[in-house]
């Protein structure tokens, strides 16, 4: 099925949810409101003609100037029919949360954790939403556009703190 045909089918079901449809180099992007994302994904996954059984990728994008600051991009692919569709769910800065799609694709688990780690997007009903690439006590969200490239002014002290906590250092008089 051509991606635009899928969009037509999707419009028949969820017309009010679709904000915008864009096309670039044969790839179709559908911008969506975030509320019914699980239902839409469930439909795309289950419908036998569409059958998007493979979640190739899921990531966040940050647009500080736009009304909806964050976007979650779902890269859906069908191995059976060999077609691809990209969904973009829009999230505002005040309320950056969206329902998790882990119940549909297990592979979304770590991708969502990474989006949470890098952008501070919260995924409701996610089984294990922790930081994944950054240390657990890291402050800030590195891939946001307002986060400096060089990182925070103060250097991360996690390891030094651990060393201080180590009581043996003083007992054994180890120079740190």
């Amino acid at each position: 099925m051509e991606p635009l045909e899928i969009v037509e089918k999707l419009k028949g079901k969820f017309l009010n949810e679709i904000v915008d449809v864009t096309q670039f180099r044969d790839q179709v992007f559908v911008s969506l409101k975030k509320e019914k994302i699980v239902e839409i994904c469930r439909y795309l996954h289950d419908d036998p003609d569409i059958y998007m059984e493979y979640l190739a990728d899921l990531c966040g994008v940050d647009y500080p100037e736009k009304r909806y600051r964050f976007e979650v991009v779902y890269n859906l692919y069908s191995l059976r029919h060999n077609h691809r569709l990209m969904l973009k769910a829009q999230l505002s800065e005040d309320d950056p949360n969206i329902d998790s799609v882990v119940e549909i694709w297990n592979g979304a688990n770590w991708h969502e954790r990474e989006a949470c780690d890098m952008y501070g997007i919260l995924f409701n009903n996610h089984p294990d939403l922790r930081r994944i690439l950054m240390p657990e006590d890291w402050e800030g969200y590195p891939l946001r556009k307002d986060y400096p490239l060089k990182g925070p002014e103060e250097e991360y002290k996690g390891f030094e703190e651990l060393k201080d906590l180590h009581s043996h250092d003083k007992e054994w008089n180890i120079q740190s």
Partner: protein
Amino acid sequence: MENIEDKANTELENGARVSSREMTINMGPQHPATHGVLRLVLDLDGENIVKCTPYVGYLHRGVEKLAEHRNYMQILPLTDRLDYISSMSNNLGYCYAVEKLFDIELPERTEYIRTIVGELSRIANHLLWLATHALDIGAMTVFLYCFREREQILDFFERICGARLTVTYPRVGGLKNDVDKEWLDDVYAFTEEFPKRVEDYETLINKNRIWLRRTKGVGVISAEEAINWGLSGPVLRGSGVPYDIRKISSYGVYDKVKWEVCVGKNGDIYDRYRVRMDEFIQSNSIVRQCVEQIPEGPIMADAPKFTLPAKDKVLTDMEHLIHHFVLITKGPQTAPEGELYMATEVPKGEMGFFFVSDGTGKPYRMRVRSPSFVHVSALPKITEGEFVADLISNIGSIDIVLGECDR
């Protein structure tokens, strides 16, 4: 705590009581069998893994953040450091994605050379995989044999670009250097020799009872589950799903040579091993056919705003000199506005680059979809309920590189 108390007095069927309790152990991040800095926290019930929690991020260098502050030419060396075992494939994946974004048509000779080096890189990657995987399970000899052939391929890379590991050989819109006749002849001689070498490896381990006992029926993942977890590459094909991006996508010259997608059946470690062994032969055949068919011609595409012009033109023509100067000092100044995802089949699976371009010379967002990241995320699914001794062979069989996983 309750759980432990319950476990402490397990009653066996014959009425005897044994005392057992779960144990939590930490494996890594510095562990020779985790193939990098992967840390696993394992809850064990005797020899069985009850729960496996991977921790990644020790090699996180922020490639996606760095890419937002560099132009499209400067990002290329960063992609070498993702999967440093097969950096050539990463380079190619990145270049194909950017070329699709810029809409650059490649010369035919470039496509052939890229396919040759891409497949050589696949062979080199699988050789390293076989060497370390066999070593993990206890077969030392294979390690030495595999490194002998890998060395030859790295020598080929060194001859065309001067580097063995982090090659940065392709460029956006073409290649750094052309290859000469002598190089092609040597590659051809290698492809004649290589199938015999693969037979050598197979005689070493194919009938080895320890190898078979440790791989057959271990680490099974079904086709549906593998798809649902987003696995790709030999791991997915080992479960019987004939998904290979080289067949469905339009990059390289894979449509002009004869080859087959290698598929397993049972989804266990042995089938993943079989898929990779078959890919040796297929890749070797692709390289061989490419060397036979390769045409003469230019190696850089004609896109002066994005690709470096030929040196003789720079020295004689004003326009080209200006383009050269601007590209070297500032990089590409414009890019088509839009969003684009392009995936290529790297040795480990589906390597995808997702670009958001806002029209400037730097990507607004570059997302790297790396196969290792997805494969590590499925590791608990594969290993839970199995023996802790099989964990090592499971990690080996999904073929991960943490540089690519953590980015």
